[in-house]
């Protein structure tokens, strides 16, 4: 029973990590209709920038705070100066932009390898979250519980912001009718770039958060981004709540496959995805083009 519970918690922890990535990806897609294949690049950027900060200052908390700033800036610049101007010109914009970000994903992995080499790095767990805690008669690392808490907190905060605040209302309006929002005097390009930056920052945040439990290496983003794609497709592209549930489903599937069916470890989530595509091609939680 206890190993099962531990696997369950591990699954939730992985789910929350993937959720942090999926939420940015799905927000960007829902709002701007851009499939950002480079989302994993921002994950990598955040992790490495966090690593640099942590090595310089010795503080995990500073790394967590400052690490996401670089992906935020990079995401903002990418959308405002590259993707948006290109989208103004192309015909089949979303596919072109997806392919462009595909190139960016590999360029980032290559650039990181050039600067940091191909070694594996890690950020030390902060003292406050070290050790294990007794839970239902077993021991569980505090840090992993912290990841779960962070994921849930960010999910709740996002739902509140999008449902209850003016910014959220503007975003929802932007999805429904972009021209009307522009006519009301809102600089939608700036708003989109900020959201792109924010989504990228969340991916970078996930990179720092994961650093104490997973390794930091140059192609770390390429692996996890495919899992994230599975999540957003299962949850329905552009659907925020759907991506939360889908993160749990995918994270659990992956964790339990690794624990109990190691032969299927590398493809269990794809079988899940294919099953979803056969029965509900629009994703389990439907409604494409919605932010919330």
């Amino acid at each position, binding site marked *: 029973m206890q190993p099962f519970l531990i696997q369950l918690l591990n699954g939730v922890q992985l789910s929350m990590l993937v959720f942090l990535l999926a939420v940015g990806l799905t927000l960007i897609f829902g709002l701007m209709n851009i*499939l950002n294949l480079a989302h994993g690049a921002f994950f990598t950027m955040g992790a490495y920038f966090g690593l640099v900060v942590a090595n310089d200052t010795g503080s995990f908390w500073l790394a967590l705070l400052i690490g996401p700033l670089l992906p935020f800036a990079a995401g903002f610049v990418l959308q405002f100066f590259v993707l948006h101007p290109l989208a103004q010109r*192309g015909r089949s914009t979303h596919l*072109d932009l997806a*392919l462009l970000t595909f190139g960016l994903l590999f360029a980032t992995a290559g*650039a990181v390898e050039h600067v940091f080499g191909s070694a594996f790095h890690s950020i030390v767990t902060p003292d406050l979250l070290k050790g294990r805690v007794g839970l239902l008669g077993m021991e569980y690392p505090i840090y992993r519980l912290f990841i779960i808490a962070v994921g849930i907190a960010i999910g709740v905060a996002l739902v509140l912001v999008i449902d209850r605040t003016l910014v959220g209302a503007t975003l929802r309006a932007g999805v429904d009718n972009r021209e009307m929002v522009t006519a009301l005097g809102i600089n939608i390009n700036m708003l989109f770039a900020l959201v792109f930056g924010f989504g990228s920052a969340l991916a970078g945040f996930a990179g720092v958060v994961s650093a104490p439990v997973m390794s930091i290496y140059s192609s770390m983003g390429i692996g996890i981004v495919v899992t994230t794609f599975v999540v957003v497709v299962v949850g329905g592209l552009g659907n925020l709540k759907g991506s939360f549930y889908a993160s749990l489903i995918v994270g659990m599937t992956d964790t339990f496959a690794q624990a109990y069916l190691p032969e299927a470890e590398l493809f269990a989530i794809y079988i899940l995805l294919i099953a979803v595509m056969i029965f509900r091609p629009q994703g389990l939680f439907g409604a494409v083009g919605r932010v919330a």
Partner: protein
Amino acid sequence: MSADVALSSEQRIGVLKRLPLPASRRAYAALFALFAVSLCALPSFVSGYVMTLAVEAMIAGVFASGINLLTGYTGLVSLGQAMFLGFGGYGIAIGTALLGWPLWISAPVTLVVVAAIAAPIGAICTRTRGVEFLLITLAFSQMFYGAAIKLRWTNGSDGMTGIPRPDLSLLGVSADNPTVFYYYVLAVAVLSLLMLWRIVTSPFGSVLVGIRENERRMMSMGYSVANYKIGSFALAAVICAVAGILQSQYTYFVNPDAMSWQMSGEGVLMVIIGGANVVLGPFVGATVFVVVKQALSMITEEYNLFFGIFFMLVVALFRGGVLGFISTPIGKRQ
């Protein structure tokens, strides 16, 4: 807004008008023949190194041609075609090494099996379109990539070695000789191209272009769009598998990397460089790609970095990228 729509429908008519006419077809055939003759003469003029590059470019060209059928002609952008490249290589490896069949049985059986596997995969994938199609093809290829790494009887991530080249002793030559292998690849590439040309100039090919341009109209004209898409997917898969067979014979081995995500991306890149919608385009794109890749590998070890930058530049500079690229020459003519 409405002006945009009107323009694009005119553009669409323009595309349909561009479907090969007899005269342009003859010019095309002449060009094609010239191309083939100069490739035949190549070994007597250049060094072994250039011939190696030419072999790589032709194999990549066959691979990109398969992608072009799906992406350029049918309008479905896939990031998972490398799985069929891997299927081709693994197919003959399993056939010859594990089952002990001769190559001339293994190769056709491989192609039939690939078509049989690709049809249901295509049936699932073509239920979606646009970026979702891109994602699900990617997921399928990642799944098979994962399976190839895990499977014991194909040696997991080490892959399989000892893949035979065709036995040409009847002609008194050995395919292990680079020049002979060059001609073998050239023959297969030309055959694949002719087959592809036959496909895209047939009524079937016109329906595929129709789907790309206006799927709803094709549907209301009574075409079973779903079946045509599955057909296109399966044919593209078979052509990619041919490239996979050649590739594994060229290197004498196959490993899961043949199915990697990056390989699929490279194929799409070649199609964009060469220009979708042209039969020879992917070969041009493949040649450019192979040469650039060689040049890059001479000056830097950070291949990923430059591959990524190169990719971004091509997508950004070729206006409209994959699908928009097709409309560019028509836009200029108007």
